[in-house]
């Protein structure tokens, strides 16, 4: 059974009809890529799933339950965690305090352990743990945002353009981390303009165009698809 089923959702910003009936599914354990050019509706899709926005129509079924009207903070309790576009680290909190905030909902005694596995994944964060997050480089902030999102022990991790603005070396570091997270059983919905990288690690992908799903396929087929190659992979 699908962990997440998005069925024909319509989301608006005031009068602007941003999502015009988007549907897709994510199975447990999959890495799903959502690709599409700027303004296609990728961020809005993630914001709608995470509960930051409510769809005006359509339904979102997660773990067998309708969640489209649920608040973001309650969805975190149910295992949905998001790394927002632009990272969204708390600049005036230290690295470690940011991670503490990731574990805000937890009351079990194993937070310290998970803090250490976060540091193990990104050793640079450990070196900078007492530093304000605002002083980190873009790449370090992205690592922090990912490590922080994992502190709530999510089942479903939503990532919005984790490669944005990063040097190629760091893009590799981040994508390796995403693969490692997936291999530990976290289901991943990955939004990327960097379709090349996303499709390399994804199982399947959906291509968004002006608020609609233009087409979808396995990641391997999408990489061979002519339209995808031309439009999103820059191959003529």
């Amino acid at each position, binding site marked *: 059974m699908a962990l997440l089923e998005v069925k024909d959702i319509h989301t608006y910003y005031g009068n602007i009809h941003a999502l015009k009936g988007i549907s897709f599914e994510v199975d447990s354990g999959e890495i799903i890529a959502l690709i599409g050019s700027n303004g296609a509706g990728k961020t809005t899709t993630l914001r709608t799933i995470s*509960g930051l926005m409510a769809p005006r129509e359509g339904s979102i079924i997660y773990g067998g339950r309708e969640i489209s009207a649920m*608040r973001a*903070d309650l969805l975190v309790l149910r295992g949905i*965690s998001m790394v*927002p576009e632009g990272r969204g680290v*708390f600049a005036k909190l230290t690295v470690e305090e940011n991670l503490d*905030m990731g574990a*805000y909902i937890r009351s079990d005694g194993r937070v310290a352990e998970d803090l250490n596995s976060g540091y193990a994944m990104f050793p640079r964060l450990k070196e900078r743990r007492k530093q304000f997050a605002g002083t980190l480089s873009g790449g370090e902030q992205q690592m922090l945002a990912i490590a922080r999102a994992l502190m709530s022990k999510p089942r479903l991790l939503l990532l919005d353009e984790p490669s944005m603005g990063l040097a190629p070396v760091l893009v590799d570091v981040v994508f390796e981390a995403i693969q490692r997270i997936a291999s530990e059983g976290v289901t991943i919905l990955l939004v990327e303009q960097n379709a090349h990288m996303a499709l390399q690690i994804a199982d399947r992908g959906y291509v968004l165009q002006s608020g609609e799903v233009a087409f979808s396929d396995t990641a391997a087929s999408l990489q061979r698809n002519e339209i995808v190659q031309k439009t999103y992979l820059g191959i003529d």
Partner: protein
Amino acid sequence: MFRNKSGEFSWVDFTIDVLRVLIVLAVVVGAWNTLSSGRISLAQWVNLFAAGLSQGSIYALIALGYTLVYGILLMINFAHGEVFMAGAFSAFFLAEALNQTGFLNAQPILAILLLFMFAGLVSMTVAVLVERFAYRPLRGSPRLVPLITAIGASFFLQYTFRGLYGSHFKAYPQVQLLQGTLQLGDISIPVTQIFVFSSALVLMFGLHWLVERTRIGKAMRAVSENKEVARLMGIDIDWVILFTFGVGGFLAGSAGVINGLFRPQGVNFYMGFIPGIKAFTAAVLGGIGNIPGAMLGGLFLGVIEAIGPNLVLAGLGIPGANQLKDVIAFTMLVLVLIFRPQGILGERLSETKA
């Protein structure tokens, strides 16, 4: 000088610079006259300073409430003076009762702690109710709207207390333990002042610990920085906002007890107005939204108010200088708004938050 950033002559900058020079001149001349006349002895200066610190502690505790709420909602809670009044006023009745049973002077420390808890809880409740019913339904509306409800809430609270208890001042009973003075050489400091300053310090350290070290404190900072991302952490924003109002209320209520025990004239329904505005001034002085700023701003304003009239105004030959405390406070507010709108410790509002 006299030029704006693009290097052209500007009348506004010219006026501001002239003002700046005149103020510095007035302060220097006034202080020089006073000090050279030797009218006030060193011991007297120390006394003025200590009294200023005490009054400033009260401003600081109230100012923290303004700054906490501003930090999280970018809103000035103009009903906060009444939150202070509600705690101070309610604790008066408890103090009376404790005095009648003799408990107040038999177990003064316990009794004072009880007063703090009671006033703190009353003010906390009032602050939380004001947030819940006057502000929350209007969150997201234009900034003027909560300002108007704040004034409404202020009047509501003032006239509720007036209706219930009349408009007379009611003085707190005396606590024997706090009477008398502490003699240090030829300087004598009233015990009350030591009590005021040290209890304010304890509360401020408590707040510092809460905000810096606890999970809810970190959540307060997270919410103040980015509400949307805070929600993605699973933080219930509404709860954190309510909690923030509650903390500010508790501090204001405690300030109410301190005020009641420190200032002999007592409590009445209107008592929150002036301290409220002064504390707001202190918060702006320190940089609104900035916690250490509110503490320093409060203490600074208290000291300036105590020393300024005697040092500067009296030196300029202005009669009845001590009656002009309030003038000093509000002049400070205007000057800060002109010369350093972001306050002493604050960042620039225009770019980051406003």
